[in-house]
């Protein structure tokens, strides 16, 4: 757990992304959100990742940070998230066709998930975050130009990063250079921070 000795969080301003840097593993500048800082400290102190690689998804700031099993930062990138606001997946959403998921139900849930690599229905490689809820992290989808997903990733503000049906979209380079190597051959942990609930409610509550 010594990795907390270097627990100076590194994040990235959206401005750097706009400048053409899709992700960063060593930028000394910028400030991660206090929530990211807090959850990362908690993971280090409790070894909650259980020796596994992990991701922290910050919905409020629309960013993801990747770490190796020892807690060394592997990289960070902007993300696209579910259109709906909230921290809980609607019941049965994982079994609905996309057309049956209304805007208010397109929620990226908060919580701790044991994730693993897999494939979606089209055979595309994805990281299953919650298989039952059909929740995954994958390279940004560009098949619907009207969604303007690449542009949304590139803008400074996180306000326009809510577009998906709940999945987490990341830059292709981040997925294939950071996420896939880290999660190949192993499961890992994905921590999705809440936007309406508190960290304590989602992560720190006593079990049971």
């Amino acid at each position, binding site marked *: 757990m010594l990795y907390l000795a270097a627990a100076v969080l590194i994040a990235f301003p959206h401005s750097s992304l706009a400048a053409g840097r899709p992700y960063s593993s060593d930028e000394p500048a910028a400030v991660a959100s206090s929530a990211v800082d807090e959850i990362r400290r908690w993971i280090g102190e409790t070894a909650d990742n*259980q*020796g596994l690689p992990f991701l922290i998804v910050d919905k409020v700031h629309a960013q993801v940070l990747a770490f190796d099993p020892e807690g060394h930062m592997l990289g960070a990138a902007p993300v696209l998230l579910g259109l709906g606001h909230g921290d809980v997946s609607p019941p049965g959403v*994982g079994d609905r066709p*996309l057309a049956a998921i209304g805007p208010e139900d397109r929620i990226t849930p908060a919580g701790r998930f*044991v994730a693993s690599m897999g494939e979606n229905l089209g055979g595309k490689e994805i990281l299953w975050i919650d298989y039952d809820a059909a929740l995954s992290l994958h390279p940004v989808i560009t098949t619907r130009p009207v969604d303007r997903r690449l542009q949304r990733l590139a803008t400074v503000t996180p306000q326009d990063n809510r577009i998906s049906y709940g*999945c987490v979209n990341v830059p292709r380079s981040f997925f294939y250079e950071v996420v896939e190597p880290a999660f190949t051959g192993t499961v890992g942990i994905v921590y999705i921070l809440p936007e309406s609930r508190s960290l304590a409610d989602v992560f720190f509550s006593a079990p049971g």
Partner: protein
Amino acid sequence: MNVYHAITTTDGNIALCAGHDVHIDAAVTLTRGSTIPAQSLGLPVGLTLIAGADGMGPGVGGGTIIFSPLAPPVTVTVAPVAIFYNPVSYAAPSDFRTRFVLTEGAALSQRMLLFPDGGRAFNGATATTLNGFRTTAVSGAPTGVTLVAGPAASATFDSAAAGADVGITYSGYTLAGANADQYALAGSCCVGTFRTRGTISPAGVTPPVVVPPVAPPVVPPVTPPPVTPPVVPPVTPPPVAPPLIPPFVSPLPSVPYPVVTPMPDLALDLVDRGVRMPPYEAAPIPAPVEEVLAPARPAWVAPPVPVYVRKQDRN
């Protein structure tokens, strides 16, 4: 080192490191170790007890953990406990578990200290090589463990002078073998080196030639024939002069002493027909302070990777 008063820490670490004994007379309570630099102070996570860091073992005289009969059990919650000590015998490790209350995953590891042997003949230098382990008749020899010298292994006597049990500071050696996890090298606290001892035997001393005693030939006893003494008339003895006592003479040998020729690189102080030994110079032994051990991370077993059938995700 003595714990006379209760020690309690929450979200912090405790390391008690002694050259010899660690006496625990009061409560020690640790709840959750810490890896946060400002809280951990660089100490190993959890509770660490080291008794015998100055390399005077093996044997309990070299340092061990001593719990006062009235001391309450050490209480540790959600943190590892590591004990390094000298057993009475390597064949019979001590078991301190009864002195601990370990809860919520707290685990206790107990390791016996080993002391590599660095003894060699005097050569005027301090560098030496470690081989095997020092043992006593009581300690016996450790089993299932060997000493491995790494590429940067080094060992240095405290003094180059000949003598018994000269202190040695060393580094770059590790333990291997099936039972290596039951042992540890005696580390000096807060430094990356370890301590042991070795004997520097005098060099150039030719042992004297021992001539076996010559047994006299065995002559069978001869029984003289019985003789009948003749009858002699009594004789008045004449006055006898007192015996002449010779003066005391020193038993100096008649052979000459060898001439002592100093070696050019040794500043020998010749006195009469001998050599004055230089004063013993012992290198200062650093005061024991707390040692930083590499924290032992739990050995997590990754769960198997699930295999999911393809499925529509939420884009």
